[in-house]
C-alpha cells in the first residue's frame, strides 16, 4: 500500500500563492475587497469539512429594528476581576518571559468607540505552550502563567492588557508547520452582528508568509490590520514593551439604539 506523501511547507506555499493570485484576479475583475478570509481556504486543512457550501442567506437589518441580532448581550464589572487584564498577576509567582503591554481601541465601522463591552484573550506561554490538555507541543508549562485575560472597554472604547510575549509553536497542518506568535481575541460589539473572534500578531515575525491561517486573509492590507504596532509610548520603563492594536468590528449596528451601554 502506498503511503501518501507527507504535505510539506513547499506544497502549502504553492497553495497560498495560488489563493493569493486568484484573489488578485478577482479584484482586477472588479470584485470587492475581501476583508475577511473565505471559509473554504484549502491551505488550512481543517477548513475543508467545516465550511458551508451553500451561500449564506442575507438579512438586511435596516428593514427590521426588532431583530434579536441588533442587540448585544451585556457584560459588567461583576463579570471580571481586578487582575483579569494583567495576565502576569494571576498566580503567586512571576511568569517567565518578556512582559508586554497591549492596548488599543474597540471601534465600529463608523469609527465610533464601542464602550463597556467585553474583550477576552487567550494565548500560549513564552515557550509556545497552551495550558490545554490536548496541546501536544512538548514545550514546558509555566505554573505562573495560564494565559487568559478579560477586560471591559472604557468610555473611549479603550482596552489594556499586561501579559507575556507568547512563543511561536508547531502544529500539524503540514510537516514543519509553525504558527507565528499571536494573541487570540474574542470581542463583543453593540450588536450581536458585530461579534468577532480573531488573532493579533506581532510586527516583523518571519513566520508570516508560511502560516496558512494568517494567509487566509488574502487581502494584503486586511492582513496587515492583524499585526500590532510597537508603540514606545505604551512601553513601561524597566517593565514591559508596548504594542498598539485597534480592533474595528464589522457587521451592521442599529443606529437607532443607544451607542455603547
Amino acid at each position, binding site marked *: 500500500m502506498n503511503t501518501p506523501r507527507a504535505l510539506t511547507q513547499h506544497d502549502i506555499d504553492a497553495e497560498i500563492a495560488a489563493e493569493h493570485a486568484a484573489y488578485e484576479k478577482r479584484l482586477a475583475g472588479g470584485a470587492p475587497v475581501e476583508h475577511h478570509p473565505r471559509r473554504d481556504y484549502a491551505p488550512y486543512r481543517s477548513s475543508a469539512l467545516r465550511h458551508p457550501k451553500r451561500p449564506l442567506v442575507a438579512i438586511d437589518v435596516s428593514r427590521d429594528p426588532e431583530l434579536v441580532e441588533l442587540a448585544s448581550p451585556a457584560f459588567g464589572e461583576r*463579570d*471580571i476581576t481586578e487582575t483579569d487584564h494583567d495576565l502576569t498577576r494571576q498566580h503567586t509567582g512571576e511568569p517567565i518571559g518578556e512582559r508586554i503591554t497591549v492596548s488599543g481601541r474597540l471601534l465600529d465601522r463608523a469609527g465610533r468607540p464601542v464602550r463597556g463591552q467585553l474583550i477576552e484573550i487567550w494565548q500560549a506561554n513564552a515557550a509556545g505552550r497552551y495550558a490545554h490538555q*490536548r496541546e501536544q507541543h512538548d514545550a514546558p508549562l509555566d505554573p505562573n502563567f495560564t494565559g487568559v485575560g478579560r477586560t471591559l472597554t472604557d468610555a473611549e472604547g479603550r482596552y489594556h492588557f499586561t501579559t507575556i510575549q507568547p512563543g511561536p509553536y508547531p502544529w500539524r497542518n503540514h510537516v514543519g508547520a509553525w504558527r507565528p506568535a499571536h494573541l*487570540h481575541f474574542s470581542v463583543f460589539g453593540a450588536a450581536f452582528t458585530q461579534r468577532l473572534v*480573531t488573532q493579533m500578531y506581532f510586527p516583523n515575525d518571519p513566520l508570516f508568509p508560511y502560516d496558512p491561517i494568517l494567509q487566509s486573509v488574502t487581502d494584503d492590507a486586511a492582513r496587515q*490590520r492583524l499585526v500590532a504596532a510597537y508603540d514606545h509610548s505604551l512601553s513601561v520603563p524597566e517593565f514591559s514593551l508596548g504594542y498598539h492594536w485597534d480592533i474595528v468590528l464589522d457587521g451592521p449596528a442599529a443606529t437607532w439604539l443607544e451607542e455603547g451601554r
Partner: protein
Amino acid sequence: MTQATDAAEGVLPTPSHTVGPFYGYALPFPGGGDIAPVGHPDAITVQGYVRDGAGAPLPDAVVELWGPDRDGTLPRVDGSMRRDPATGGHLGRNGVEFTGWGRVQTDANGHWYARTVRPGTRGRNAPYLSVCVFARGLLVHLFTRVYVPDGAATAHALASDPLLARLDPARRDTLVAREQGDGTYRFDIRLQGEGETVFLEFT
C-alpha cells in the same frame, strides 16, 4: 496598528480568524448554558449536535445563544459570567436575573445543550434565538437561528416569519427546532453537506 480608513468604506474592519483548538480554558465558563433563571416557568432546553461535511461530530465547537425573554424583551442585564473577586474563580449566574446570553462548548461527542427562557415574539418575527458558532477550522464564525415552535400558538408566526418565508421548505426546516416533549427541543447544526444548516449574513 492605527485604524485604516477608506473614503467610501469608513474604518476598515479587523479580519476574522478561527477560534482554534485551544480556547477551552478561556472561553467556556461554568453554567454557560444555564441561561434560564432557576425554576423559571417558561424554561426550555435546546440540545443537539454540531457536525461537519462528513457527518462527524465536532468535539471542539463553541455555540453562543442570544435571545429575548418570554415577552420578547432583550435583556440589558450583565452577570452571565459572574466572578469571585476573592479567589478570581467563577461564581456563575445568580439564578435570578436573565441575561439572555449563554456560551456552551460541544462535548467529546459533539453534543451541546442549553437551558434558556422560551423566546417571545418581536415584531413580525416568529420566536427565535440567535446562534453564533465557532470552531477550529472555521475561519469566520457562522450565524444561524433556532426557531422555537410552541404548537398552535406559534403556527401563524412561523408561517409568516420574514426569513423562513424566503427559504425553500427543505432548508427552512434546518432552522426550526424539533419538539421532543417536556419543553425540550432538538437543534442540530450541520456545517456542510446533506442537511446543511441555513447560515445568515447581516448587511
